[in-house]
């Protein structure tokens, strides 16, 4: 009976591996954010490997890899985001804002900033607030 369960796990793992291989190759080069998509697909392969390890009876290795695999994926994605993605996709850094000026709750960022700067100038002029300092002479 255990042999059949092991075989089923191994076959499931093999199926997932082939699916992830097809996915890895079938993405076209022009796809947007392709590196992140491929990292996602490799996550499927990692899980297939963990299932295969369980099928082979290596539970400790499966547990270790289950913990380590997300760290690897995150490190690669983070490195790509910090270095290459910012250089390749420069337009990612500019955010276009489309806000309806007549909207009752959502206001454009520039408008709010202008209002805030006006307020701060008013606050500077405002005489209701005053700052006093007390001089303490240690000799007394």
């Amino acid at each position, binding site marked *: 009976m255990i*042999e*059949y369960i*092991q*075989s089923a796990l*191994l*076959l499931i*793992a*093999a*199926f997932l*591996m*082939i699916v*992830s*291989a*097809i996915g*890895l*190759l079938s993405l076209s*080069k022009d796809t947007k954010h*392709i*590196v992140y998509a*491929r*990292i996602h697909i*490799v996550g499927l*392969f*990692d899980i297939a*490997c963990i299932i*295969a*390890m369980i*099928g*082979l*009876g*290596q539970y400790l*290795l499966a547990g*270790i*890899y289950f913990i*380590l695999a997300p*760290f*690897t994926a995150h*490190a*690669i*994605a*983070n*490195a*790509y*985001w*910090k*270095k*290459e993605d910012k250089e*390749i996709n420069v337009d990612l850094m500019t955010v276009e804002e489309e806000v309806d000026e007549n909207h009752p709750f959502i206001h454009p960022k520039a408008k709010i900033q202008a209002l805030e700067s006006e307020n701060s100038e008013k606050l500077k002029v405002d005489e209701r607030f005053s700052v006093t300092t007390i001089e303490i002479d240690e000799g007394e």
Partner: protein
Amino acid sequence: MDILFISKYIVLIALVIMMLAALRASAYKSTSMGLLGSSVVVTAFAVGLLVVGGQYNIQFYRDISLALMFFGFVGTIAFAVTLGGEDK
């Protein structure tokens, strides 16, 4: 023929296919893709060693597999940190 034996060989074939796909993907222009491809190849090789070691009862293959998995992880993290640079 034993079904477990056949399953193990199917897994090996799938691992070889995945290795080839990862090699193809790592030829993409970005360095991160190379890193990802090498990580996949190392993992696939480690699992392949586990399969072969289990089938032919070679105990030290499991140790090699563990070492590959652990040092592959350390190498990938180290390279990714170097690639990403310092936080500004």
